């Protein structure tokens, strides 16, 4: 693994760290309140490493539920990673299953989005993605254990902490808007996601939105290309 790439990836993880530390702490606090030990909270962050499902697991544990309903909920919440893993697979051909296993084990919404903000940096560079992901994971574990140990020392609802990850996602979304039709896809996906979240239980809205909005994206793109064939694809967006 290339040391230089690893360092570059680790550096790219810093905005995620800023979001993961306080949110991880919030998880640690809630896990302790639900009756988990610091060890258990830390192990969950180490082995599962999937924010939303961890919060829901802790919520269900505090209500006395255990085992099957929690594992089932976790499965459905994290099914959305299928899409991210499929996308990332395009950038990692000819790598060993061990490398791919290592990379995919630490895949999260945030690290995926940062990786996609500049795909030239990840293409067949497992070191970069590994650095990005392991630093993020480390921040998540540190936050969780810290939160479990220190308890309510810091109020995780203050200092703008609830908006750290939303702000990160907004910027990552706008980085993806490179052409006019990307903007339309964003609007279409936004509307779909609101409708599906309203209409369907759980996290299905993310998967359905991604499939439908991408399908519409292909249609828009083929129209754009057939009507204006002379314009090169990398023309900067006039937006």
């Amino acid at each position, binding site marked *: 693994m290339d040391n230089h790439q690893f360092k570059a990836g680790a550096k790219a993880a810093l905005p995620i760290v800023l979001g993961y530390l306080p949110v991880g702490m919030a998880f640690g606090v809630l896990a302790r309140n639900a009756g988990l030990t610091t060890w258990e909270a830390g192990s969950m962050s180490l082995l599962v490493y999937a924010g939303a499902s961890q919060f829901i697991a802790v919520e269900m544990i505090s209500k006395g539920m255990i085992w099957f309903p929690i594992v089932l909920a976790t499965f459905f919440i994290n099914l959305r990673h299928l899409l991210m*893993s499929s996308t990332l697979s395009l950038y*990692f051909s000819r790598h060993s299953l061990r490398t*791919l296993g290592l990379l995919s084990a630490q*895949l999260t919404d945030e690290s995926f989005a940062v990786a996609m903000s500049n795909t030239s940096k990840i293409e067949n560079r497992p070191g970069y993605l590994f650095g990005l992901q392991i630093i993020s994971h480390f921040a998540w574990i540190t936050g969780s254990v810290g939160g479990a140990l220190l308890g309510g020392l810091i109020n995780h609802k203050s200092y703008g902490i609830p908006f750290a990850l939303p702000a990160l996602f907004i910027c990552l979304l706008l980085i993806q808007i490179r052409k006019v039709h990307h903007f339309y896809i964003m609007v279409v996906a936004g509307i779909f996601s*609101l409708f599906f979240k309203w209409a369907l239980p759980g996290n299905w809205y993310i998967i359905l939105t991604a499939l439908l909005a991408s399908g519409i994206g292909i249609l828009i793109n083929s129209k754009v290309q057939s009507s204006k064939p002379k314009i090169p694809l990398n023309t900067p967006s006039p937006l």
Partner: protein
Amino acid sequence: MRPDIFCLILGMALVTFIPRFLPMALLSRWVIPERVKRGLDYFPISILSAIVFPILFFNGEGRMEIQPHYVLSAIPVFIFAWKVKSLWGSVILGMAVYWGLGFVL
């Protein structure tokens, strides 16, 4: 660690790992048709939209309801992030605005 909690964590870890790993393991070994590849190009935008917009219009319990605190914090971040594509800057600005709004709202 209690054995039942440990088994729960292992179960969660396993069902989380499978959808993360399978596409990467299988698709990286196949030749993907151009059309599918172009569709995958739009996944990041769609997924990120599907993460961002519901945050602004749904409350914590999953009911649809405009979240003024989030919407008002998001507007400056949208503008800033569009002009300056800085992740750090966006996170700091978003947190500062959200914190500041806490005193007003």
